[in-house]
């Protein structure tokens, strides 16, 4: 399988402090990759560098063989990269379907239409995506009026609506109840294999089941990488997590 995402020699520091000291990794097409590491390991910074929210100091990022590190965020999205946010980043006054419709519109040429109307098909498609995450009943409610767990699912629905080739999930389970985590887990497990998934998650019990391979990040470096069994068995993982 070809590499969906290849990162080489990626570096980023803030005011002299390296957040990403040197990261090289490769994610195969269709793979489910879990990225773990203690707080401050640089996980979210890594995502922000991948999407272009932050600009890198050095290194390369290739998406299906194409160098994207110099492209702006919105261009990377059009190359098939989508993400969710650890801190809910939705449009609170708008309805769920409007949120998802915005996501659909982002990849459509119609987003430049200045005097027309948004075709109803966008809302129909949005409701279809919302149905996939079990939110069809509240599709016409404003984001501000739905529960936290439902907002988490809207985050994922917005990313899925774009049928991304690579999907970055930043702590999709954060703050959810056990039951909600179960629901979301099967939702993530059901993402078609055309989409490569890279996920940051603290909830190991749930996340480890979803992952094909796991990368452990520590102080902005990859210290362990492998299958679940390999990573769990590696003494360096224990060292990071247990402090031995």
């Amino acid at each position, binding site marked *: 399988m070809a590499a969906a995402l290849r990162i080489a020699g990626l570096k980023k520091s803030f005011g002299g402090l390296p957040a990403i000291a040197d990261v090289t990794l490769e994610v195969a097409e269709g793979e489910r990759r879990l990225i773990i590491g203690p707080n401050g390991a640089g996980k979210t910074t890594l995502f922000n560098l991948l999407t272009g929210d932050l600009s890198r100091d050095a290194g390369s990022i290739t998406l299906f063989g194409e160098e994207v590190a110099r492209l702006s965020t919105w261009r990377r*999205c*059009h190359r098939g990269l989508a993400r969710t946010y650890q801190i809910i980043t939705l*449009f609170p006054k708008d309805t769920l379907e409007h949120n998802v419709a915005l996501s659909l519109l*982002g990849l459509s040429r119609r987003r430049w239409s*200045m*005097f027309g109307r948004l075709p109803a098909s966008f809302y129909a498609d949005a409701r279809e995506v919302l149905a996939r995450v079990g939110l069809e009943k509240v599709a016409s409610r404003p984001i501000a009026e739905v529960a936290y767990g439902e907002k988490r699912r809207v985050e994922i629905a917005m990313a899925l609506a774009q049928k991304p080739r690579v999907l970055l999930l930043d702590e999709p389970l954060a703050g959810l109840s056990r039951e909600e985590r179960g629901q979301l887990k099967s939702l993530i497990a059901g993402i078609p294999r055309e989409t490569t998934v890279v996920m940051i998650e603290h909830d190991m019990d749930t996340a480890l089941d979803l992952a094909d391979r796991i990368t452990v990040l520590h102080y902005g470096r990859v210290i362990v990488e492998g299958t679940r069994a390999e990573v769990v068995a590696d003494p360096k993982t224990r060292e990071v997590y247990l402090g031995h």
Partner: protein
Amino acid sequence: MKTPLAVIVLAALLPLLAGEYYINLASQIVIFAVFAASINLLLGYGGLATLGHAAYLGVAAYLSAFLYLKLQLAHWAIAPLALIGTTLMAGVFGLVALRATGLGFLMLTLALSQVLWGTAYRWVSVTDGDNGLRGLARPMPFGINMNEAMPFYYFVLVIGVFAIWMMARFVSSPFGATLRGTRDQPRRMSALGYDVWLIRWITFIYAGFWGAVSGLLFVYYHKYIHPVSLSLANSAEGLLAVIAGGSGTLAGPIVGAAIVLLLKNWASAYIERWNMLLGFVFVFIVVLMPEGVVPGVKRLWQRRSASRG
């Protein structure tokens, strides 16, 4: 659709009921409403607070007066030239001002327009400096004499309604939805595939264009243009109208324009100090009624009808 139609019908009937003084006042309100609505595109829908919008009103007015008085061109040629010139300037100013957002954007728009204001005073060979450019005649579309209050009012009303309708369509289009998105969550919008900068720049130019249209109407009305029309106070009055009426709503700038002009007009009968009153109104509105009059009244109305039902 009912309310806008009712407002237009009432506005069209006004000359039958009111005398010349009020017809002229109504013309000024329509012109000011177009100006305020163009500010609202940036402030209300784009989240971009501009303190330099008088630049577009003033430059379009100056261009018209200059071309008419000094180059003796005809109105049919002047109007497009003034609009194109001002819109191009908006494009350049947008390139500069949109290097920043938030307060930086505000300071850049203010600095850019203040530079024009200072130039209008000093570039006497073109602007006649503090005397202003005087002596422009109103255009005569289809040979209609526009020097009477009533025909001019209808002229302004037709253009004003068209302008506000075009701005209303703009904000309710897919592009308008993306513009509101960039106001609320610019980072997410980039991640969703939107070129946030370009969206803002296009809106900046579009707002500059309608600001220029209000400037043409302004100079037709007064037949005179003075540097004070480029001043910070003029930009601030427009911004105040938007905020007083309620930013990010279609009716807001229209209501706000009426409030500010009626207040100004009423006050001028009793006191000489409009600027001081303007200052106090600013402080009052921001401290006590930050959401604006239209949303405030709407909220009260909803509460009332909710308690009934």
